[in-house]
């Protein structure tokens, strides 16, 4: 090839040749650019969530399911659209459909019901309900603090808008706008997790 480049040139070439993994691009950018270090990072960040969810959804098969989820995420990474929702919502969506496929393939109930099935029940949970609830719980955690509190007080603690306004010492109109924007964010994440 060519002569060993000078340090400055070497740096420029390194940047050029490896461009998806340099330049401080976000995980989303690098994943979309096909940078294979992005998969490792995706795994590091989201595998506890995916595995925990898979455990609830398919019990003893959780690790196999989680493996499929990350392989599928890598192979279909070009379908991830940051404009539609977060990486977390996208991954929970993949987990959702893998679990639905799993139960479709294995049947709704174990052939021999057993009390010794272990810690995990080998019966089909309501996959959609479990996933939806997790998506919204995680999405709530991503909201700005006051907005999160408004939504939690309204739905988890059943407070009225005036009660929330009084408790947080903010105007009623602010409560309403936080509530609306909060629900919009949650709705977007829910939608992203439901796209096949």
């Amino acid at each position, binding site marked *: 090839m060519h002569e060993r480049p000078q340090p400055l*040139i070497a740096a420029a070439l390194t940047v050029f040749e490896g461009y998806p993994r340099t330049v401080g691009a976000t995980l989303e950018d690098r994943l979309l650019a096909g940078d294979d270090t992005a*998969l490792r990072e995706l795994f590091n960040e989201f*595998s506890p969530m995916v595995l925990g969810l898979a455990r609830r959804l398919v019990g003893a098969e959780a690790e196999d399911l989680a493996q499929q989820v990350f392989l599928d995420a890598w192979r279909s990474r070009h379908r991830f659209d940051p404009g539609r929702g977060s990486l977390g919502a996208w991954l929970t969506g993949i987990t959702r459909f893998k679990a639905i496929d799993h139960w479709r393939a294995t049947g709704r109930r174990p052939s021999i019901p057993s009390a010794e099935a272990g810690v995990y029940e080998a019966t089909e949970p309501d996959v959609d309900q479990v996933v939806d609830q997790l998506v919204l719980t995680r999405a709530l955690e991503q909201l700005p603090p006051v907005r999160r509190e408004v939504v939690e007080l309204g739905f988890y603690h059943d407070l009225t808008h005036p009660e929330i306004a009084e408790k947080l010492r903010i105007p009623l109109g602010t409560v309403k706008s936080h509530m609306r924007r909060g629900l919009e964010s949650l709705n977007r994440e829910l939608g992203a997790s439901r796209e096949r």
Partner: protein
Amino acid sequence: MSGNGDEFPEFGDVTSILRNGPSDVTDETPPPALWERIEAELASGSPVTTLADRRARRGIAGPIVVGIAAALLLVALPLGLAWRSSTGEPDRTVELAALDAFVGAGSAELDGRELRVETTGLVQEEGSSYELWLLDLDNGELSGLVSLGFIEADGTYVIDDDVDLDEFSVVDISVEPNDGNPEHSGNSVLRGELVA
């Protein structure tokens, strides 16, 4: 009753899920073997994946990669000439001919590490895309392949520096189902060999 949610009928799903309270799914730290299995499965898969998708495939990734490329240009410009001439790539061209029952024609021209591709007669069908590849064929046997990305309107594709064009000298256009699988579908539409 607070009536929360009744004011936001457009978020009906979100509000009814929220009423079930927060998710009780807990994270689970994966065993190291899980990542190893994922890595092993990727390694045993297609040799395409490391280079596939270097070009952004669609959506928001386009502007991001263009942005990165533009930023790099500023760095690379003063060095570009020296770098380009040092690669010593001969310019080559190829006529692309239709294979089997397919119709269409095309041509490709190599300029440095850029391949400019023009096609005619390829029909864009719903649910599938055309993908550009370089193949390493030894006496008709496939010994390697790299993806240069999906066929796009601008028609210019960048070839990674680690691809030896004396080996990967066959230009191939395949039709690929939009199923997220990055491997070659096996359905080549147009093909031709780069010649000096």
